[in-house]
Each structure stands twice: as C-alpha cells, then as structure tokens.
C-alpha cells in the first residue's frame, strides 16, 4: 500500500506548534487539555455480530466502552447485505438482551428436591453434581441389546432438548457429546 504514503507535500512537525503558519493554537490546546484532564475522552471498540431473534440473520455492530467493558450501543451493520444497516423493532431493542437488562441470569441456581426456593451454587459443584446424576441414571437404565438381541447401546432415560438459539459450534458439540453418551431422545425447537 506504499502508493498512498506519497502525500504530495509532507509537512514535518506535530500539530499545535503554531509558530510557522501563525495559526493560534492556544485555545485548541487548552480545550484539548481540558477534555483529557476531565477524562471526557472515552474509547470504544466495535464488534460485528448477528441478531438472535428471527432467522433473517441481520448484521449488528456492538459498541463496547473500553473503560466499563459494557455495550453502550447496538446498531445495524451497514455492510451486511441482508439488512443494509436497518433493523426491525425487536432488533432495535436488542440492547435489552445485554446485561443492561437486570433480569439476566448471572448466578448458577440450584433447586434441591422438594425445596421451594433457589440456591446459588458455583460451577464446579454444579458440574460434578450433574456428572454424578448423568452417570448414575445412564448406568442404571443403559440398554445394551434390544428385544431381538441386537446391539443398540442406548440411553433411553436421559433426553436432550438442545436449542436453535445457540451457535453452530455449540450445537455440534452438543450433538457429538449426546451421541457419545448414547442418548436417543434428542430434539430441539426447530421441530416445534
């Protein structure tokens, strides 16, 4: 891309040194200094993503404040040929799906048998407990051969309702792992 460096006339020296052209940079420097001092200069990053409502696949651009790490604006991705930057009512309200919506789940919740309230747990406890339940249930009801004596290796007492609201990679991981566990009752809302 060297082609573009050849600006016709390169003036050396940084902005602000106003001596040569006689430009008065004093108020500009003052304003710049004041802006940075009262840290009114924010910085953000922009990421492209895809809407999670209907299957049109409209492109979105999320602006994330570097300081707080939170999304502060979501708009249509102007280059996405499907929506060309426009969004529908739900898409425009996509911001309400981020953590700005106080109803978002943030803690692992657990309900003990016959209990009438949620308890908060941590991930490790949850995964070890779930693994235990899966193993016990699978081992107890595992069907190695069917009535005609054929090898079937089925786990009929565990079912998986996956989701068409998660990414392809996640769907594939679910599909592979439930097949490995021998599940046959596998479905999700694509059918519903």
């Amino acid at each position, binding site marked *: 891309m060297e082609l573009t460096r050849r600006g016709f006339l390169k003036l050396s020296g940084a902005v602000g040194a106003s001596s040569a052209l006689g430009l008065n940079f004093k108020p500009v420097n003052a304003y710049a200094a004041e802006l940075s001092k009262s840290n009114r200069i924010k910085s953000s990053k922009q990421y492209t993503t895809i809407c999670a409502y209907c299957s049109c696949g409209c492109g979105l651009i999320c602006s994330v404040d570097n300081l707080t790490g939170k999304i502060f604006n979501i708009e249509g991705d102007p280059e996405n040929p499907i929506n060309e930057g*426009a*969004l*529908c*009512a739900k898409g*425009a*309200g996509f*911001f309400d799906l981020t953590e700005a919506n106080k109803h978002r789940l943030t803690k692992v919740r657990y309900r003990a048998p016959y209990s009438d309230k949620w308890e908060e747990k941590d991930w490790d406890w949850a995964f070890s407990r779930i693994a235990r339940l899966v193993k016990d249930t699978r081992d107890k009801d595992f069907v190695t051969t069917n009535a005609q004596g054929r090898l079937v290796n089925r786990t009929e007492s565990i079912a998986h309702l996956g989701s068409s609201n998660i990414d392809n990679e996640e769907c594939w991981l679910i599909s592979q792992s439930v097949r490995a566990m021998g599940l046959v009752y596998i479905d999700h809302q694509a059918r519903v």
Partner: protein
Amino acid sequence: MKKTEYIKLIDTTKCTACRGCQVACKQWNEMPAMRTRNFGSYQNPPDLQWNTWTLIRFQEHVDKNGDFKWLFRKDGCMHCTEAACIKVCPSGALYHTEYGTVGINQKLCIGCKACISACPFDIPRFNQQTEKIYKCDLCYDRLKDGQQPACALSCPTGAITVGEREAMIDKAYGRLDQLEGKGIVYGDKFVGGTHVMYILSEDPAVYDKLPVKPRIPASVILWKNLFKPFTLIGMGAVAGMAALHYLIKGPHEVHENKEGDE
C-alpha cells in the same frame, strides 16, 4: 435565529405497524413502560400518555366499495406553525424552536393544562406526580446535534423520514404519483402548515382522532385575541371615564340637610 425548517413525513402506506418507533422514542427519551392490559386491540398503550409521546393507532375500516383495510397511523404532536398550545401557554414552556417545531421547556411548565384542551389534535398529556405537560418535541436535542429524530432513525420500512421543509413537501406530493392518486397529503393546508405531515391511503375523516380541518379553537381566539386585550382596555377605559367624570362632574357631594331637596 431561524435555521432550516424541518418536516417529519409519515407515509402510512409504507408502515407495517412494527412499532419500532414507539420503542425508539421511549429508549431515547428514557420514558418508563407502564403495566398495560389488553383492551381488545393491538394498540397499546391505549392512548398517548405522559410517558408515551408517539403511538401507532390501529383501525379496522371497510372502505366505500366494501374492501377491508387495516389502517395504521403514527399519532403524536403535529408541530403546527400556528400552534394553539403556544398561544394559550401562560409560562412560555411551549415555544417555537428555530426549526419551526414546537419545543417544550419542562422547567417553565406550571401544569395549568390549558394546552390540553386548546390543542386541535389532543396531543399534550399531563403527569400527576410532576404536574408537567409532556409531548413529542421532534427530538429537539437531537436536531440541535444535527441528528435525525429517534423514530425516523429506527423506521425499517422508511415510512418515517425527516428533511428540509420544501424538499419534504415535494417528496410527499411525489409519492402521490407513485400511489396513482390513491393517497392524500395531510398537513400543509391548515394551521399554517404542520411540521409533521401524513400520506394517508384513506380520506382523513376515516381516521379516528384525526381532525378533518384542524384549526385553533374559536374559544382560544376569542379568549386570547379579544377578551385578553379587552380586559386591560375595558378596565383602562372605565378608569379613564371615572377620572373624567371626577374632573368634569366632580365628586357627588352630600347635600347638608336641605329638606325636600331630595
């Protein structure tokens, strides 16, 4: 200092009532949502409220040759040039902005509610707690920052567009040709021309809560153009006559008991 006048054109023939504008308006102005009930229509909230400045009105209509039409109209302040609300507002809370729209300065509003009955379109709404009037101000703060109003920005079908006055009027009449004359432009023929204009697919009389010939109510004209000046003139004149009477006729003296005089 007069800047370019803007007009918001609402093309109801393109509107699919997705109500993105209702959400965008509340999002930008940070207006809370209320717990509404379903009262037998898609239209919700049921009417403009102090926290709902724009509202899609749903209307089921059978036209003259029996075809069913489902009409959607985005209701909200029409930003009249001759604004009845500005005329009656005692505190100057309602005023004409440099873009020709009707701005509202909440601080000045004393909650006298005179504008509510004066408005030919019945737009301003009152909030009991804050005792203030609320209505669409065509995103005056966004216009000052050179941005489009939030509803125009959010409209996916391009039914809501904002632009410079003459250009938008031409665009509106241009759109009529596209509709082979089946559309009607509403908004430039009364109250000095409104800064919110419609392209309607049916006759204005059909749309509910849309006046066919809106104008400043006669009561307001009588009140503000006649009685208001005459209060001063009247009292002034009478005071003047009294003074004259005093100077010419002098006080009406009491006559010392001349019997039979009276």
